[in-house]
C-alpha cells in the first residue's frame, strides 16, 4: 500500500514536471519573439536603406555623393554632395552639445551630490517632464519663442536659423544627459568619496577629482547617446532651421539637416522612382551609419566602465 502510493506520486510528479517544461517553452518562445521584433525591425530598416541606396548610387556615384559641394537634387543642375546636409546636421548637433553637455552634467552632479531630498524630489520629475515633451512642441517653441528672442538680440537673424534649432535640440537632450550621468555618478561607491573626505578633501575636491572621474565613462556614454539623439532629431530642425542645404558653420544662417531633407521630400509630391526620391535613402543610410556608430561607441565605453570598479 505504502510502496504503491509512493510509486503513484512519483508518476504524478513526472507529469507535472513535463507540463511545466512545456509552459516554460511557450513563455520562452513568446519572450524571444518579442526580443526578436526589435532586431528584425532594425535589420529590415537597414536592408531597405541599403537596397534603395544601391538604386540611388547606380545613378549617382559614391564619388559624387562625397565630393560635390552642393545638394541640389530638385534643381535642373543637380548636385548630390552630402556635405551641406551633413554640415547642417553637425552644426545643429554641435550647438546642442554645447548646451546640453555642461547643463546636463552639472544638473546631474547637483542632483546626485548637492541637492537635498526635497529639492531632488522636485527636480527629477521636472527633468522627466522635459524629456516627455513632444518634439513638435519644442519645434514650435524654437520658432515662435527662441527665434524672436534671438532676433531681438541679433536683428539681422533670419526666421530660420541653425542657432535657434540647435539651442532647442540641446534643451531637449538635457534630461537624457542628466539622468544617465546621474546614474553613473550615483554608481560610484560611497566608500570612494569617503576615502577622499577622510584625507581632508572638500566637497568640491572630492566630487570633481574622485566622484566625477569615477563616473566618467558613464558620463561620456550619456553624451554620445544624447548626441546621436540630436543627430537624428527631425521635428525641431524641420520647423526652425529652414530648408536650405548650406555648407556653412555660421549658426545664424538657414540650413537644412539630413532629417529635415528626408521629411521635405517625403511630404512633398515627389514621384516614387525619381532620383530625388531615391536620394532620401542615401541620406537616410548616412544618418543610420552615423547614429549606429555612435551607439556602438557608447556601448564600448559603457562596457569599459562596468569593469572599472
Amino acid at each position, binding site marked *: 500500500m505504502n510502496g504503491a502510493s509512493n510509486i503513484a506520486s512519483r508518476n504524478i510528479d513526472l507529469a507535472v514536471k513535463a507540463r511545466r517544461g512545456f509552459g516554460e517553452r511557450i513563455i520562452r518562445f513568446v519572450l524571444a519573439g518579442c526580443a526578436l521584433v526589435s532586431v528584425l525591425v532594425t535589420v529590415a530598416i537597414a536592408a531597405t536603406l541599403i537596397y534603395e541606396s544601391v538604386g540611388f548610387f547606380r545613378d549617382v556615384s559614391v564619388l559624387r555623393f562625397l565630393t560635390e559641394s552642393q545638394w541640389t537634387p530638385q534643381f535642373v543642375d543637380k548636385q548630390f554632395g552630402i556635405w551641406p546636409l551633413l554640415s547642417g546636421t553637425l552644426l545643429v548637433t554641435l550647438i546642442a552639445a554645447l548646451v546640453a553637455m555642461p547643463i546636463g552634467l552639472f544638473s546631474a552632479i547637483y542632483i546626485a551630490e548637492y541637492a537635498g531630498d526635497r529639492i531632488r524630489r522636485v527636480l527629477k520629475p521636472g527633468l522627466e517632464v522635459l524629456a516627455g515633451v513632444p518634439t513638435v512642441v519644442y519645434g514650435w517653441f524654437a520658432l515662435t519663442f527662441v527665434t524672436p528672442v534671438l532676433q531681438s538680440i541679433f536683428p539681422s537673424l533670419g526666421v530660420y536659423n541653425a542657432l535657434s534649432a540647435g539651442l532647442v535640440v540641446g534643451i531637449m537632450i538635457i534630461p537624457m544627459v542628466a539622468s544617465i550621468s546621474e546614474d553613473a555618478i550615483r554608481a560610484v561607491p560611497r*566608500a570612494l568619496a*569617503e*576615502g577622499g573626505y*577622510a584625507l*581632508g578633501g*572638500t566637497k568640491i575636491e572630492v566630487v570633481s577629482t574622485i566622484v566625477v572621474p569615477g563616473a566618467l565613462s558613464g558620463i561620456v556614454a550619456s553624451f554620445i547617446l544624447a548626441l546621436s539623439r540630436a543627430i537624428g532629431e527631425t521635428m525641431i530642425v524641420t520647423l526652425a532651421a529652414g530648408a536650405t542645404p548650406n555648407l556653412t558653420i555660421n549658426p545664424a544662417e538657414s540650413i537644412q539637416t539630413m532629417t529635415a531633407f528626408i521629411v521635405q521630400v517625403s511630404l512633398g509630391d515627389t514621384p516614387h522612382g525619381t532620383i530625388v526620391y531615391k536620394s532620401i535613402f542615401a541620406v537616410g543610410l548616412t544618418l543610420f551609419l552615423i547614429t549606429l556608430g555612435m551607439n556602438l561607441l557608447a556601448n564600448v565605453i559603457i562596457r569599459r566602465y562596468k569593469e572599472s570598479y
Partner: protein
Amino acid sequence: MSTESPEVNEVIEQTPHAGDGAPPTDQLAPTLMSATDAANTTRTKIEIENLNFWYGRKQALTDISLAIQERRVTAFIGPSGCGKSTLLRCLNRMNDLIPGARLEGTVRVDGHDIYNASDAVVVRRHIGMVFQKPNPFPKSIYQNIVWGAKINGFSGQPDELVERCLRQAALWDEVKDRLGDNAYNLSGGQQQRLCIARALAVEPEILLMDEPASALDPIATTKLEETILDLRERYTVVIVTHNMHQARRVSDETAFFYIGQLIEKTPTEQLFTRPREQRTEDYIMGRFG
C-alpha cells in the same frame, strides 16, 4: 592637558585605585618601545568627554569619556553593533557626512575642541582614516598617494613622497616597479596598505583604523600588524578590531565597548589578563558576542 587620565574611569565605578593609565606600566615587548620609551612620558592626544551620538532617533553612543594617549596604539573592541566604528568616525568628524546624525559632548585633540573650534576638513587633514574595506581611488598607485597630499597644498617632490609613504606602509618593494598601475590591480592586502600609505601622505598625527585587517589573509594581516607597530613610533593610532589576538599584539591600551557604552579602558595586557568588569571578561573569553 594633563598627562594622566583618571577621568576615563568614571564609567567604571568599582575601581577607586586608579593609576592604571600610568604610562610606565606598558607591558608590551620592549622591542616595540624604542621611540615611545625615549620620550617616556606620554600625554593625552585625544580626549573624549561625555560623548553621546544619535543616528536619527537611535542612540548609538552613550556618555563616552575616554582619553587616548599620544604615540600609543589604542584598540577598540566589543561585540558587533556596539558603536566602535561610530566612535571612531566621531574622532575625525566623518559622521558629519551622515544625514540626521547628531552629536553631543566634546572631542578634544591636543586641547582643541574639534567640533566647535575647527572645520571638519581641517580636522580630517590631521586625523587620517583607514577603512574596513580597502577603498583605493580608481587611479594609479602613484596618484592614490599624491591626491591627498596635493589637495593639502603639498609642494615638494611627489616621487619622494610616494616612495616614503609606500615604505612606511611596507608596500614599496611590492609595487615600486608598477607605480603607474591602477590600484585595483593590487591584492586586497596590498590595497589596504596602499590606503595606509595614502593616509600617511597627508602627514596626519593620528591614524584611525576601522578593522583594517578584516578583509585580509593571515600573511597580509601579519604584515599590516608590523606596519602598525612601526607607525606607533610617530603616530597616535586607534584601531577597531574584532580579533582579540590582534588587539593584544598591536595595542598598548584597549577599550571595551558594549551597546554604545565604554565598559573599561586599561593597558592591553591588563584587560586581557585581569579585566575589571564581568562583561569584559565574558567577552574576551568568548562567552557572548
